Structures are given as C-alpha cells and as structure tokens.
C-alpha cells in the first residue's frame, strides 16, 4: 500500500484503491443493427487494453497533488475515473468534499450565444446553481478582461479570449476538490501569470487540487507531492522535484541512447583519424544517457589515428532539439598544441563544463581538424550520441544561467505622474 494517509488528519480528500480501467478495442465493430441481424452469432472480438492497473494513492485535504507521466501513461484516464466520467472496472475511489473537474476548458460553450449565457450554462455544468452562476458573472468577466466584449457572440471571440473566459468560469467554482487537466498551457504570458497567481491562491486557501500535466516546472512550483505514472502503473509518489527528474528520465532517457542522432550529414574528412566513440561520464562502461542540470558534465571523445597527425584540434558543437548550436567548444581555444600522434594510436579528448543547459535532448557534433584555422577536416562525426538534460528549471531560455537580481531605490526616478502618463495608451 503506497498510500501514505494515516487517518490522523481525518479521511483523505481523494483516495484510490487498486483502481483498474480496461478499454475494449473491438477488432471489427458492428455499428448497425443490420450487421447485428446478419451475423447474430458472431461474437464481437475485441482486444483488451489496460489503461490503469492497480493504482492506489491518497490525496490529503489541502494538498496540491501532481500526476505526471508520458502520453498514454494513463494519467488522463485516471483523472476521468476520479471525476466519475469513466467507471472503474476494479478497485474503488472515494472523495470527501465537493469536486469540480476541468478536463477541458469551456465544455458546453455555445458559439452562437453571448458571454452571459455561456458563463451561466458552463457554471451550472461545473456544479453551480443558476443563481450562483449568475451572481459570479461580473467577477468572471472582470477576471477574463472581457468587459468590452461581453455582448459579442462567442464565435466572434479570438481563441485567446475564449480560453480566458473559460478559465475564469472554471476558477469561480468554489469546489473543495479540483481536478485539473493541462489547463495551464493557455493564454498569453500575462494571462498565464494570472493563472499561476490563482493556483497559488487556491493552494493557500487550502483547497485540494489534483493536477495532471507535462509541465515539470509547474509541478515543482505548485505541487506538494506528485505521482509518476507509466503504462498505467504508479512508478513513484513523492517529492515533486524527484518525480520531475524521474519523469524526464523516463520521457527522454528511454529513447535516448547511442543511436543515430541525425544531426548534420554523413561523415566527412580526409580520414587520417576517426572518432570511434563518444560518451557521457567517466568511462565507456559507465556511460550516461542523462545529464542532470546544474551538475558537472563531461563528454568524452575517443579518437583513433590512422596516420601521423600533429596537433589536431577537436571541436564539439552541442545542438538542441531545434538544431540550434547551444554550446561550441574546441581544444584549439585552450591550446594549439594537443600533441603529436602516430598511426595506430588512440587519444581521449574530454569536454567538461558545468551543465547549465535547458532541459531537453542534445546532440553533439564532433569535428577533428588539422592544425590551423580548422578548415582541414579530418573527421566530422554526428551519429554518436544524444543525451538528455534533466532538470526542473525551464525558464524558456536555451540555457539556465544563474542570474542574480537586485532591486534598489533610484533617486532620480521620475515623479509618479509621469510614469502614469507614459503607461497610458496615447
């Protein structure tokens, strides 16, 4: 029993016990009565697919609980089971308190109706009484910043306005337990910040929130605890930072490996030397596929020489998933004299740096050149390795450089009236 509730704080807000959910995938589905009538004896064969197998966990009242996992890991199915949209095949779920679900924002919005009607209808669907829903209309519109557009039909809204309205309705529902599926990825930056503020407020108000997401920075930022699912099973439950690391390992680590990374083209160069191996870590036996963020990282390159070479230079370019070069380093910048190598000899070149890369997958491109300006290519090697940087800081930049910020008074600041004047449009 991985459930950690003790009963000391009363019953958990949500508890799940050995939950199984099975989907039947029919091989050939009889969709009409005619087919049924023509083949009355044919059993519809179907494959069974277990989306959830034996999930048990408990969420304490007031807890912000994250559920993470890759696509198809069962997290959305689990949320739908918790919400009562799917019936579980085995096991049990309990909840304590009024629950509200946001699987999708704006469910039941009708494009031909104006904001008022839609807010009322959506609010009722989310569990408000009509009176409550109407009473909250002003607040909803205000939060969504749609005061000027409230008489428009919804079909004339931009998608951003649509989402803002939907989110605003959703947060006005004062349920004790909120089930939220990936709704953070909405709106522009300013509205997202507002959403984050709301989540923080809810957290402080002591509401219980179950939150399904892919966004590890959100998990570490908000969640008290998190649960990692993989193939319908619980991998682990615990501290969000650890869970986020495990998630990134599973999400990227499994696929990462010593496969063809596909950066650049085929090998080129005169062939007097060859890159024979590339790895992360100390020895080839202990090669890593994952490089944790904010820790030292060492990339080692083994080069075999087919002819005598004097002072070759090895350079490394790290590409991210968008094929942008993020880090470029060369032995030539440190020393021009790397030494003289004879045919048949091997040498190890290491690139070490403090890992400040943004989380994601990286492909190194290695180039050995003759001494000089680096134009005489001996070997160009791209197929060796791709690795994944795991970490929880994802500011959106290509690198995560620690930045210090300071705030201090500034004597020469302009008077407030001028600031106001400057901030006002026109």
């Amino acid at each position: 029993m991985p459930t950690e509730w003790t009963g000391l704080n009363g019953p958990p807000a949500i508890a799940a016990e050995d939950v199984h959910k099975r989907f039947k995938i029919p091989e050939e589905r009889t969709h009409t009565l005619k087919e049924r009538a023509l083949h009355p004896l044919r059993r519809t064969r179907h494959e069974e697919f277990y989306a959830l197998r034996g999930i048990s966990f408990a969420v304490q009242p007031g807890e912000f609980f994250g559920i993470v996992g890759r696509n198809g890991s069962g997290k959305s199915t689990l949320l739908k089971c918790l919400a009562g949209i799917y019936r579980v095949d085995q096991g049990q779920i309990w909840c304590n308190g009024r629950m509200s679900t946001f699987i999708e924002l704006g469910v039941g919005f009708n494009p031909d109706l104006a904001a008022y009607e839609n807010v009322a209808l959506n609010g009722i669907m989310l569990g408000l009484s009509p009176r409550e829903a109407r009473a909250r209309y002003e607040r909803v519109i205000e939060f969504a910043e749609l005061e000027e557009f409230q008489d428009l039909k919804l079909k004339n809204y931009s998608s951003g306005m649509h989402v803002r309205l939907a989110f605003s309705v959703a947060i006005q529902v004062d349920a004790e337990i909120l089930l939220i599926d990936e709704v953070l990825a909405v709106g522009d930056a300013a509205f997202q910040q507002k959403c984050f503020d709301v989540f923080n407020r809810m957290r402080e108000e002591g509401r219980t929130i179950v939150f399904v997401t892919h966004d590890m920075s959100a998990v570490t930022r908000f969640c008290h605890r998190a649960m990692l699912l993989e193939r319908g099973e619980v991998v682990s439950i615990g501290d969000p930072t650890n869970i986020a690391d495990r998630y990134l390992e599973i999400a990227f680590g499994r696929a990462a490996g010593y496969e063809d990374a596909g950066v650049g083209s085929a090998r080129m160069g005169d062939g007097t030397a060859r890159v024979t191996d590339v790895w992360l870590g100390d020895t080839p036996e202990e090669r890593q596929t994952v490089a944790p963020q904010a820790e030292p990282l060492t990339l080692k390159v083994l080069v075999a020489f087919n002819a005598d070479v004097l002072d070759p230079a090895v350079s490394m370019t790290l590409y991210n998933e968008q094929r942008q070069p993020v880090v470029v380093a060369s032995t030539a910048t440190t020393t021009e004299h790397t030494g003289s190598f004879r045919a048949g000899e091997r040498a190890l070149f290491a690139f070490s740096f403090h890992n400040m890369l943004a989380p994601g997958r990286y492909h190194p491109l290695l180039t050995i050149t003759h001494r000089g300006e680096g134009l005489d290519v001996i070997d160009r090697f791209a197929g060796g390795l791709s690795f994944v940087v795991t970490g929880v800081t994802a500011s959106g930049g290509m690198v995560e450089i620690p930045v210090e910020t300071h705030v201090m008074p500034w004597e020469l600041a302009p008077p407030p009236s001028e600031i106001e004047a400057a901030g006002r449009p026109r």
Partner: protein
Amino acid sequence: MSVPALSEAMGQPIRGPRALSDSWSRFWHLTYNIARSEFKLKFFGSVLGYVWQVMRPLLLFGVLYVFFVKIFKVDKAEGAAGHFYGAQLLASIVLFTFFSEATSGAVRSVVDRENLVRKIQFPRLVIPISVVLLALFNLGLNVVVVMIFAVIAGVKPMLSWLELPLMILVLALLSTGIAMLLSALFVRFRDIQPIWEVFSQILFYSSPVIIPVEKVREALAYGQRHVVVKHGIRHLTFRHVALYHVLWHIYLLNPLVSVFQEFRHAMINHAAPSAGQALGGWLAVLEPLGLVAVVLVLGFWYFSRQAPHIAEDL
C-alpha cells in the same frame, strides 16, 4: 480494504457516470438550462425565429388541409366528426410535431453532445430529457396558435381545456421513454436513425391526424359488413371477425390514438368521441396507458444500463 467501516471512513465512493444524479436540483437545472439555451438559439438565432417555429406545422397543415378537405372532402363525413375538421387537423399536427421533435431529436442527442459526455461528470439522462423539454417549449408556443385558430373557427373556450395538460403529460411521458431508448441505442447502432424515421412516418399515418378514428373503424368494419350483405350472416366466419378485432385492437394500442382523440374531444369538439368512447370504455384506455408505462420503464432501464459506459462507447 473491503471492510465496510473503513469504506465509510474514506468518504463518498465514486461510482462513475450514471443516468441520474443524487441531486435532483442539479439534474433539473442542467436539463432546463440546456433546453433553454437551445430554445433561445432557435428563437433568436434567426430574424424570423418564432415564425419558423410556428410555420412548420402550419405549412404541413396547409398542404394536408387542401388535399383532404378541398379535394377529398374528408370533412363531409356524416355525424359530428366533420365539424371543425380543420382545427382538429391542426391540433393533431401540432401534437405530432412535438412527438416527432422529441423522439427524432433525441436519437442523435447523446452522440452529438459527445464533448460533454467525455469531458464532464453529469447525470447522462439530462441529454435526452432536455431534448423533450425543448420540444415541450415549442409545443407551448404552438398550442397557443391552435387555440387562436380554434377560436377563429368558432370553437368556444371550454372548461375541458383544463384537461389538456394531462394529455400533454401522457404524450411527453411516451416521448421521454422513446427518447431514452433511442438515444442510448444510437450509441451502439447507428441505423436506429433511418429506422426511426420510417417508423415515425408509419405512426403519423396510423394516428388520427388525417383520418379520424371513426373513419378507421368504418373501413375495418366494412369488410365484415361486406361479407354479411353479400353472402349472409352465416358466411361471416370467425376469421373475419378475429381479423377485424385484431386490427382494430392494434390500432387502438397506439397511445397517440387515445391522446389525439381525447385532445380533439376536450379541446375542439365535444361531439367527437372521447378516447374512452372511441376505444369502447374507459377501461380500454388503460391498455395504451400501460404501453406508455412499459415504454417509459424500458427506456429508463436501457438508458441506465448504458449510461456508465456511454463515454467509452462513443
């Protein structure tokens, strides 16, 4: 973990989607507001919203009236049936329009609201019931038109008009039963839609919309009389009589017959036989009423059975 005491301590169990909810007020609010917004859309969606809503039965009425009254002179029947034929025709058309809107509209309703079913927890029965409610709103408007028409045609407002809600209730219950059944069936069998279209056409012609009950009886009895007149009473075999009775019985079993007939009697023309008179005694009315109950129970049973996995079967 299956110790009951512990289960209770864990709070309220979540059992997945069902046809009904624990909270009746939520059920009603949802049903009413969905129907209301659909109604608003129809009503205010186009400039002539209300006009179109009323025009449909009126146009059908116009066509049938010209055809049967002006050309076939159905209203020139002997007896009281001929009086106010126009008003009766319109009333029946309006009632049938309600029945048709409620049932045909419900067929696709659950599938068309897939988005709701898959994304939100709510009592599933809300969907077909809201379709029936929407049809009921429209009926409310149309009944007003029928009343105006009847009064213009010379019908005096009568105390028996108070009976009308009862008739509408019976019709609404029948429609609800069928709506529940069809909407749940459609999730699994997509040919329910054309089947129901044909079936409701049959119902239209086999209900006393165009042809009054008395005419049907005459036509059925004609076979018997024909034998007696031509060959003598001794040639009237059991088969003739049985055939007549079986057909007549099947005809009367249709709840629409009783409802339309009684509606006619109570609203427009006291001279027209009431449902009881037409069926031959008030006890006979229990049969179509029983059928309504059976359809209602069957529909509810099937819908409730399907409700937990509708979200997965869509």
